[in-house]
């Protein structure tokens, strides 16, 4: 061993370990060039610090993945100043309901909130912007057989790629009823977020043209008539016994879970 190597080994042996704060600052590019070089040099020769560094990176990576996996509701694709008053009021009402839930009246409040949300949408829609007529039928156009395939694949592109011209659906659920509101105003917001506990999980994908609404016992989905691409798939929890489809003014379809299970599903054309 020559004298240079000895000196280097001594220097390393005497160098203090890098503390966790500096390891993190190193990862975040918050060290100046000199500090960075020192940390790099030390890590190259110190197993103890390398292991601590790896452990820190591993936990940071787990947080990163979970954070990025967070599902962003499609309603957020539209800025609040572009949403209808009804939808914003629904959101505000939700905040009020949460406070009341905290006082132990959760079930009652959820039901009241759902009913009030639907009533508000209906009232505002009736009084303000004309809503395009949606027609939901129980069958495909004449001559076509009813075929409601179970979706094999409901995952897709990020909601951020959802086009603004997409027709909107709203989902409101009480303890056992899932209400789906249809709304075709272009550029309007997409979704009023569903119940926070029992009801649905929302998936969104891009779509193009007029959709078909399909209700299954375990999910509701909106499928592009032309391409067959799923635009929305909403997972329906087992507690939900009834699915209603409304056009803001009236109930178009009321489906019970039993009927859906017996018939293998329901399909409505939305022209």
């Amino acid at each position, binding site marked *: 061993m020559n004298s240079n190597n000895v000196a280097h080994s001594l220097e390393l042996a005497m160098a203090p370990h890098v*503390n*966790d704060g500096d390891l993190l600052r190193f990862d975040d590019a*918050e060290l100046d060039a000199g500090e960075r070089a020192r940390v790099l040099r030390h890590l190259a020769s110190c197993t103890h610090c390398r292991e601590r560094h790896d452990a820190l990176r591993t936990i*940071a990576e*787990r947080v990163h993945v979970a954070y990025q996996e*967070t599902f962003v509701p499609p309603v957020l694709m539209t800025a609040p100043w572009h949403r209808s008053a009804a939808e914003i009021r629904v959101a505000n009402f939700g905040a009020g309901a949460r406070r009341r839930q905290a006082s132990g009246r959760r079930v009652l409040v959820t039901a009241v909130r759902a009913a009030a949300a639907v009533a508000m949408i209906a009232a505002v829609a009736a009084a303000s912007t004309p809503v395009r007529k949606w027609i939901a039928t129980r069958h495909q156009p004449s001559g076509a057989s009813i075929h409601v395939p179970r979706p094999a694949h409901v995952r897709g592109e990020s909601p951020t790629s959802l086009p603004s011209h997409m027709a909107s659906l709203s989902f409101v659920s009480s303890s056992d009823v899932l209400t789906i509101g249809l709304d075709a105003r272009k550029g309007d917001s997409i979704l009023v*977020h569903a119940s926070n506990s029992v009801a649905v999980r929302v998936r969104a994908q891009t779509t193009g043209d007029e959709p078909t609404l399909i209700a299954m016992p375990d999910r509701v989905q909106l499928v592009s008539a032309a391409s067959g691409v799923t635009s929305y798939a909403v997972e329906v929890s087992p507690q939900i016994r009834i699915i209603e489809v409304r056009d803001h003014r009236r109930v178009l379809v009321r489906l019970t879970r039993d009927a859906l299970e017996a018939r293998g599903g329901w399909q409505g054309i939305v022209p």
Partner: protein
Amino acid sequence: MDPERLYIDYAPALYRYAFHQCGDAELASDIVQETFMRLIRQPPRDVSPRAWLFQVATNLAREWGRTGTRRERLLKIVPLDAAHSDAPRGPDADVLAREEYVVVHEALARLPERDRTILLMREQGFTHAEIAAAVGTTTKSVGTLAARAFTKLRTLLPSIRPS
């Protein structure tokens, strides 16, 4: 300052941040909405709009936390509609990813608010100087505080079982 551009750029990120701060999807949506409505009403001056948006969202989440039920909600809510990924996965991988998501989410919820804010702001790509300004500490301390928060998080993870 273009609110439209800011909304497109930051609304999803702000939602993720708010959701992990408060643990409630609906409330997180409300926080995003309210934050941007405040941006329209009183645009920030002499401060980065991004920092301003996240500061307002943090304050709103904290404000709600004063009701005393926040921690309870953070710990009890299973984010049914929270875990999401664009990449197709098999059912087993889906379940594992979801369990991992719930575990990390709950561990974050159990951290003290300042620790959680530091980790979430870091995750959001804020510099240590920006994080320091938000939580009231020095820039150099942020690395140490974040590392300690990660250590606490690591000790919490084994005690959490996904429901």
